């Protein structure tokens, strides 16, 4: 599996933190989510509805290569995806993502024509 090399020039590192670059834990959650969306079960069109749990086990530093192992499971509340995130130095995060089918969890569309309200 291809990995994500966290370049020292990764923009977020400038602010997290100045003089002490360390990848924010939620970036590992986001990366796991992106990888998950790239290989959905049965070609499902999925919406991220939650994070059942995430544990951050070790810091990710500039130059680290992040890899993700995924395991999907179907449940009553939609699809669950367990992501084990690791670098060459070992596991860095364990994430359980929660998805719904886009038809079961339609995105609200509040933008468009405004009803006149005088009908």
């Amino acid at each position, binding site marked *: 599996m291809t990995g994500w090399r966290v370049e020292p020039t990764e923009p*977020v590192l400038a602010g997290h933190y100045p003089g002490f670059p360390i990848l924010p834990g939620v970036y590992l959650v986001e990366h796991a989510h992106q990888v998950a969306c790239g290989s959905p079960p049965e070609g499902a069109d999925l919406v991220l509805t939650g994070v059942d749990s995430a544990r951050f086990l070790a810091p990710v530093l500039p130059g680290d290569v992040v890899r993700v192992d995924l395991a999907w499971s179907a449940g009553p509340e939609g699809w669950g995806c367990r992501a084990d995130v690791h670098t060459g130095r070992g596991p860095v995060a364990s994430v359980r993502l929660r998805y719904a089918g886009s038809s079961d969890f339609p995105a*609200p569309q509040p933008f468009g024509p405004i009803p006149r309200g005088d009908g």
Partner: protein
Amino acid sequence: MNWRLDFAQVLAVLPHRYPIILVDRVDDLEPGVRLTARKAVSGNDPAFHAGAATWPATLLIESWCQAAAVLATWDRPNPDVRTGRVPLVGAMSGIRFPRPVWPGDVVEHHVRLDRGFGDVLIVNGDSTVDGEPVLAVDRVVVALRSATQLTGGR
């Protein structure tokens, strides 16, 4: 006594800086108990430049966690992590995103301190936009760690 913090005062508490400083203002901080903070989401956010249609839920979590870090550390601020301790999220559970956040939304974070022992704090809460829920947080564990602890001196 409760406190209200402007952006400069938030920067004096949190070590986070651009492009990942995601709390604009603290409207009400009750020390050791709870906090209400806000984050205005702009179409100028780098996430939208990268093509996102809605604000990434993971940034919403990060923003909420930064608000939690203000509650956790405001009485012992450390804006330079190289010389002191840094608030890090160790674990989270029971996170839900009832609806997306769009450019133009002002997110109001509500953080409650559940338990705190020394350098570890457990918080929960939610976020709303115009009173509508956009985030529910069952449990987040924030730990204060020194830089050398994290890197092993690397």
